[in-house]
């Protein structure tokens, strides 16, 4: 891999990876702010307003979740929101529509389970993401080196960054392997567990960030892969801790999804975003 004049390596996933790289480079404050939205929750129209509130609140990148029947990596809040959205009739099409509008303002990284991606065929799915203007894809049940090769290749071809995850239980050698396959950024999971708010960050989170930042770093493309920390970050204080420990971005899911379920969702998510932004020194 060659290294560009700015010190960043040449993207393998084209336009999507470039846009994500810019988001990590150009943000204000201590780290990129990366809120998660459950697409279509509580309903498609309010979901659009929530997305807008994320953008107004300083989101550098939005992780867009697809409601799914069997979300194995999600805790109760995200699971319930997805179920509500499904029950309300929200479809994958609705989520693409939301994402397409959102992508005009911020890079959109779609987060969805493997079966949603495989159902239409990965080529078709990747092309659809490209056409909608998405930048990346996260598939929590498609670990690198297992059955992901076709998906990564199709994403590369479509200019979509395939963002893999590492967990606290991931060995140093394995982190290096996953890191070298990462496009856009490496998603570091702060806890051994599903998504969900925690009262405090786990005692493993600094070690997770350290590994994600350093394991196998130094060889080519892997050298500058940004690290986003997610799962369990619920407030400005957590965000500040994550940034201080070296995270390049903080991903906030359940806390915001919970806010999206409140009586005045836009006000509620805006307040959470303001707290997160201030935690990041903005």
């Amino acid at each position: 891999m060659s290294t560009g004049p700015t010190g960043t390596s040449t993207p393998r996933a084209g336009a999507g990876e470039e846009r994500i790289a810019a988001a990590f480079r150009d943000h204000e404050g201590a780290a990129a702010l990366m809120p998660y939205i459950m697409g279509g929750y509580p309903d498609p129209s309010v979901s659009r307003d929530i997305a807008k509130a994320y953008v107004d609140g300083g989101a550098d990148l939005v992780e867009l979740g697809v409601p799914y029947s069997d979300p194995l990596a999600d805790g109760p809040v995200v699971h319930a929101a997805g179920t509500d959205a499904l029950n309300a009739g929200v479809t994958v099409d609705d989520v693409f529509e939301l994402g397409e509008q959102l992508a005009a303002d911020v890079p959109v990284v779609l987060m969805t389970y493997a079966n949603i991606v495989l159902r239409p065929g990965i080529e078709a799915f990747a092309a659809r993401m490209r056409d909608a203007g998405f930048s990346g894809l996260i598939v929590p049940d498609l670990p690198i080196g297992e059955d992901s090769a076709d998906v990564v290749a199709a994403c590369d071809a479509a200019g979509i960054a395939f963002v893999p995850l590492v967990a606290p239980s991931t060995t140093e050698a394995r982190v290096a392997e996953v890191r070298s396959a990462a496009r856009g950024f490496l998603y570091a999971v702060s806890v051994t567990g599903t998504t969900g708010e925690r009262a405090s960050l786990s005692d493993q989170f600094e070690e997770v960030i350290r590994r994600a930042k350093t394991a196998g770093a130094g060889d080519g493309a892997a050298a500058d892969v940004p690290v986003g920390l997610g799962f369990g970050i619920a407030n400005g204080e957590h965000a500040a801790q994550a940034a201080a420990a070296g995270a390049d971005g903080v991903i906030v899911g359940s806390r915001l999804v919970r806010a999206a379920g409140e009586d005045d969702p836009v006000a509620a998510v805006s307040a959470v975003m303001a707290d997160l932004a201030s935690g990041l020194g903005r």
Partner: protein
Amino acid sequence: MSTAHRPEIGSERRFGPYGGRYVPESLLPALDELEAVWSELRDDPAFKNEFRGLLRDYVGRPSPLYLARRMSERAGREVWLKREDLNHTGAHKINNALGQCLIAKRMGKPRIIAETGAGQHGVATATAAALLDLECVIYMGVEDIRRQMPNVQRMRLLGTTVQPVESGARTLKEAVSQAFRDWVGSVGDTHYVMGTAAGAAPFPAIVRDLQRIIGDEAREQILEQAGRLPDRVVACVGGGSNAIGIFTAFLDDPVALVGVEAGGHGILSGSHGAVLASGVDAGVLHGSYGPVMQDAQGQILEAHSVSAGLDYPGVGPQHAWLRDSGRATYVPVDDDDAVRAFREVARLEGIIPALESSHALHHVLHVPAPEVEVDLVCLSGRGDKDLAEALAKLEEIDGAAALAADDGEPTVVPTAIGSDPEADEDGDGPQGAEEVR
């Protein structure tokens, strides 16, 4: 044919295109460990001794092979029943639960979790946990808790925590999902005792290895007792553990293999669990790629079966491969037929079969198979757990006469080894629906 289904080559991750490990990253180390530990333990003499010893003295193996005479008469061929219903805890599930709990012990994991549908795997796991002093949590859908209350009470009595699962249709699929979620967080000290030959690798291979004793015994027994191999082996298929357990010993024999799936309200209704027979597309469910009931967008659909243990929208990857490769065939039997077979076998043989097994029994009793002279059927479990559900369903079908002595089934034509028709008329069972209320 590929050799991928042969157990001798280790814990396969794929069977043809099916299987794999579609799981969150945090579970990969645990799956690696399980695979490594099992590849050693499966040939470890001390482990084998301990496992075999418990199967013999605690479970009561070998389970008998029984020539069901009156069923044979009705079917017009020999019907041999492999009596897994006589195992301790009443089903084949104990073979796997005990084996996996022993593996958990060897891995030093003090806590086990499992899903259950019919409650049989839950009871088996709770039993093994009590025996081996492991902490145990069982996930069970609220709908199944309702359908299988006696098993819930058993698990609690055994010291297990039964964790109700409220999501989705509140049945087996959701219970598996919830067990996976627990495991994603608890993997450091917890082993997930997957109850069927499905899920992420290496579970389908491990469960098969632990259940193959059914077929290994049955093959020896039928050679001894009938003096020949069966023409056909029939078993019900939920996720596929009892079926793969009995099929494995016969894979290289000239013996037909038939898996019977839940036809529910009929395949055309869409309300069933006949994943293989209906020919649904492949997708990912619970860490494994294989045929799965799903909608056009990739959302997993709910299965339906009158029997909680067959109420699953996916199936084990090895069965999918056995189907594609032509080695086994899979057929549906619907709810009403299964429930009638439940009653019929009770009256013919004095054996109350599990509703799951009743699907296989209906197929053997009522689907013509002129080329078959000798049938071997896996009677995977006993039906005590199903009484309330099955009797209610029978009343729905047949009205108040559901338990009348004459159930409308054809009378058995007396033969040399036949029955006494008069004794039959004199009433071998409750005389009216009122009696059982």
